[in-house]
């Protein structure tokens, strides 16, 4: 998904982040590129994503 600077400004309001105009383009580029890549991942392995639990690989232990 290609996000505009205005999209980013509005999204940032949700987390109460006031991004100065000078940085909006860079944030939009970074976020858009990540979302585009996730789109591609969904297209390629989306069904597999549905079938796996998102367990963080952190080796927790059970004390009791």
């Amino acid at each position, binding site marked *: 998904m290609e996000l505009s600077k205005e999209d980013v400004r509005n999204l940032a309001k949700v987390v109460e982040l006031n991004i100065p105009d000078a940085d909006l383009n860079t944030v939009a580029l970074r976020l858009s590129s990540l979302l585009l890549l*996730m789109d591609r991942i969904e297209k390629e392995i989306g069904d597999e994503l549905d079938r796996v639990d998102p367990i963080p690989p952190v080796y927790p232990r059970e004390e009791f």
Partner: protein
Amino acid sequence: MIEEKLAYMSIAEQAALIKKKEISPVQLVDAYLGRIEKWDGVLHSWITVCADAARRDAKHAEAEIAKGNYRGSLHGIPFGAKDQITTGEIPTTMASIIQPDFGEGMTATAVDRLLQAGAILLGKNNLHEFGKGSSVNFHFGEPKNPWNIAYEPSHSSTGSGVSVAAGLVSVSLGEDTGGSIRGPAWANGVVGTRPTFGRVSRYGGIMYAWTQDTIGPLTRTVADNALVLQTIAGHDPKDPLSSTRPVPDYGKQFTEELSGMKLGLVTEMSVGQELHPEVARMLREALEVLKSLGATVEEVSLSKAKYAVPLQFLTSDCDVASVFVRKWLRKHWAKFDVGTRTRIAAAALVPATIYARAMRGRALVRNEVLAAFRKYDALIALMNFVPPLKLEDSVEKIDTNADVAARMFKSRRICTYPFSIANVPAISVPSGFTAEHVPMSIQIAARPFDETTMYRVAHAYEQATEWHRRHPELEKTVGPALGKAARQMAGAK
């Protein structure tokens, strides 16, 4: 010249001399302090140098050893810590100017264990701001590669890699979320280990990518690396995710050959990519060495490895942002470096549904990596498809779509992130030099908690080559820049 020889010795060599009382910890600390004074005005590998405290501790170690209370191979050995790892009263700056100290009086367990072993804290190493690896401007000076200062020293635990390579300290502790230990080890020609997640306590590291952050050593040899990891590893009640598994004696498994060892060469992180000719040559030669030691090497495909870079940005960076936004980013936007703040801001805006999908993706990548370990004892990969870049090309400046492809999803990340999100141990081992005298490395990964095999392969390879015996000639590589740096400082005054 004697001091230079001493400075570049391995910990094992220095420890042998200390134990025999042929050198004292005071001599060693003074040698390093003298070299830092001479070279670090150009190299910028330190933020804080604790000269007085280090001399005091060295005298204490000297007295203990004189009385026959030798604690072991790290007694009297100077170490540095990435300035993201807390050290009690010594400030932890995070290479940020937001506040002078983020440490809140904590001492990281890894640091504490080195101190208990008798090692001497020499100071805090420079890093990319907050360890995020995206700095454009450096508040404490831009670290330089001691082999060739025109080339990058890689990202994040940069000062740790530079200082060990330049003979300014014996070992430094770094932090690796995606490749922050292995990257600086690669570019500076030293050994760097990302341990299995849970092998080393995270307590006292100022880091918030809670599913991936690791603390590990950068050293000049594999044996030194194993010694330091063994000292800092093990369960810590202060880190609920640290493992209770016993820590093996890594060095006991070292052999000069690798007969019967099955190694998988990950094609997506090596020969399946377009490689720089010097990297391709280096890889061919490294594989020949491994085969000559008795190992079998087969190509193995990890088809999902290519997803690792966006999956990490869409998960671990969001975990970091969840803390940074409230604590610092809203209030101190302008005091952050532009690379750090725009990276964290982008992560802060990732929808939760996408974060959760990306976490599922990480599980798939990990499953694929673990499946490969059912067939292979260790996996081999490059650290990068190209040698270290010219300094100006390595900066993560994102102004255009082309910058995103070239700088954000660069090939070093493609090589290190798959093992990071799988949370398996991985080591960067020096394996050659370019025509410009810049180091290159291969990467060896092993099953979770099987650092023993990782070190065994790395050690046998290292001993069959001579790369670890080479050190930068600072008079030639840094010397010409010293006068310029002095003139600039005088001009600034």
